């Protein structure tokens, strides 16, 4: 019996009687579906804003497709710029969803049940957003299918030794498995929606997507096992996906990229940014949907602790990278050394120090218990962390490319408005999906919360 349910029925039920759990479950359904049902004017304003951003992004991309990649600022030697930064950023955002739903499930951390539905939705939408960027980055986007190994007359296959092809497999696997995992968790809730919803159309749609779920013992038995196995499969998957993303860089012999810590460091960074995004989304949602009864401050505090932990791992990686560059020094490896000196003091030093401020210094404030239990503070803090993590990828990608081996080939990269437009568009695209989700699908996992009350 968790502490979250004690106050649900108010003071008229001082003790748990026979009907306590039964009533709790009914109340839970009522509250969650109340949140799902009525779009407010604010919702429409938000949706229109998001769609407006999508419009800006689409227009920018159209301009780029018509005129060519020259419309973007990427140019030798910096061939990867804001697009790839955005790609890594969004894949990273996705990761905490799987962490919360799969890893914390295996660890039997109960607080995950407050966040997992939203976090998994976030995962799916963030991967959908991330998947756009490799395409946007293509000069001739209509040939995107060349990325896949399909039989063709010339017996040409993709190069499986290329990390970019690994990425195609990793990200598409991730999208598929996340969707399956999310959907499986949803099926029993959709069956509840089928029962509760009034309108004929809604009943039919929820009925179809619930697969005719009736809640028999047999169904639950297989469901439990499936859920456990999917969690066990998703856990190594989530490690692998951002590792593969990191290897897009680490396999290349570019200083600042080619370093062994990248895989675990990227994974930690991804979860760090993802947790920040969960906080960004859940704090307002809890308030607007009146879910205070179900999501306690304690639950947010645990999320904040996760943020601290991953923040510390990321800080460790920053320190180690820098320390080892200093350790080899000019005599040991001049390229490694100069790359890090350039990060600290060069043209992009402002970006580097922004990152340090956002990702290293700001999460340290969470050591103060009062602050990490203050939802407004958490919400405010989550935004610089998102920004800082964006800059982390920007620093890795751009700074390393701007200065590699040959001083004659040094360069400086300035993003254009096309790139910023598309970046804005990606936020719009993500939030459009998210807003639609929040009004169609129960934002809390009803069946899992029901299980807790027994």
């Amino acid at each position, binding site marked *: 019996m968790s502490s979250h349910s004690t106050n649900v029925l108010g003071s008229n039920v001082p003790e748990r009687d*026979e009907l306590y759990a039964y009533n709790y479950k009914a109340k839970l359904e009522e509250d969650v579906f109340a949140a799902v049902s009525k779009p407010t004017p604010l919702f429409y304003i938000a949706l229109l804003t998001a769609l407006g951003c999508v419009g800006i992004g689409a227009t920018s991309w159209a301009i780029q497709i018509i005129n060519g990649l020259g419309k973007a600022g990427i140019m030798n030697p910096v061939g990867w710029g804001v697009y790839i930064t955005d790609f890594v950023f969004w894949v990273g955002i996705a990761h905490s969803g799987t962490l919360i739903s799969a890893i914390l499930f295996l660890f039997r951390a109960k607080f995950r049940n407050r966040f997992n539905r939203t976090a998994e939705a976030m995962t799916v939408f963030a991967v959908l957003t991330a998947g756009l960027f490799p395409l946007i980055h293509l000069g001739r986007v209509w040939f995107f299918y060349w990325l896949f190994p399909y039989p063709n007359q010339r017996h040409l296959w993709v190069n499986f030794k290329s990390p970019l092809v690994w990425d195609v497999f990793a990200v598409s696997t991730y999208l598929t498995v996340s969707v399956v995992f999310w959907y499986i968790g949803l099926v029993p809730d959709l069956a509840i929606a089928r029962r509760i919803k009034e309108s004929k159309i809604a009943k039919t749609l929820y009925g*179809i997507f619930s*697969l005719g779920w009736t809640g*028999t013992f047999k169904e*639950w038995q*297989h469901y439990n096992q499936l859920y456990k196995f999917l969690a066990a499969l998703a856990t190594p998957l989530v490690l692998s996906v951002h590792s593969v993303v990191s290897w897009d860089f680490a396999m290349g012999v570019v200083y600042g990229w080619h370093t062994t810590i990248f895989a675990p460091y990227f994974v930690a960074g991804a979860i760090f940014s993802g947790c920040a995004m969960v906080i960004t989304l859940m704090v307002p949602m809890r308030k607007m949907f009146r879910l205070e009864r179900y999501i306690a401050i304690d639950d947010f505090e645990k999320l904040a602790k996760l943020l601290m932990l991953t923040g510390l791992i990321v800080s460790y990686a920053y320190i180690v990278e820098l320390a080892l560059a200093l350790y080899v020094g000019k005599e040991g490896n001049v390229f490694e050394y100069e790359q890090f000196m350039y990060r600290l003091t060069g043209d992009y030093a402002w970006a580097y120090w922004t990152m340090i401020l956002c990702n290293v210094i700001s999460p340290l404030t969470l050591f103060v218990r009062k602050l990490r239990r203050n939802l407004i503070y958490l919400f405010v803090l989550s935004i610089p962390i998102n920004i800082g993590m964006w800059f982390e990828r920007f620093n890795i990608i751009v700074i390393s490319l701007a200065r590699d081996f040959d001083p004659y080939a040094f360069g400086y990269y300035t993003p254009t408005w096309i790139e910023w437009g598309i970046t804005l568009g990606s936020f719009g695209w993500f939030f459009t999906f998210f807003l639609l989700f929040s009004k169609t699908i129960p934002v809390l996992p009803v069946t899992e919360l029901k299980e807790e009350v027994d």
Partner: protein
Amino acid sequence: MEFRFTNREQFMEKLENILESGMSPDNMKIVMPNPDHEIEHLVEHYKSPSKLKYFTLVGGLTGCLTGYAFTAWTAIDWQLVTGGKPFFSWPAYTVIAFELTILFGALASFAGLLILGKLPRFSKMLNPENYANEYVIIIEDED
């Protein structure tokens, strides 16, 4: 015969009685509002646990083999040295094999639920029995 309960403990008591009387869980239908590990343990005492794990295992192994076999075959099908790496570069192909292990494992497990749980059940999509949050035991009559 149909028994309905709003209280979980009473339901479990009844269920235990029925099961102890020798009735096989296969001959009755139990409906629950949410998954429940205690009840699962109780029933699995009389009934074998889910066979879903074999779907996962077979799917995962198939994915792993496919990953290595396919990458190796494409490398040999059109031999082209790239990056100065050997044709069969197992570290690189491990990544593909790993991803396919997870992909096939997850999809096979999902298929396992659909097959073992006999889903989707079209007849129940639109007109399900409405038990809300009650626990129900239905014993099918033996005519």
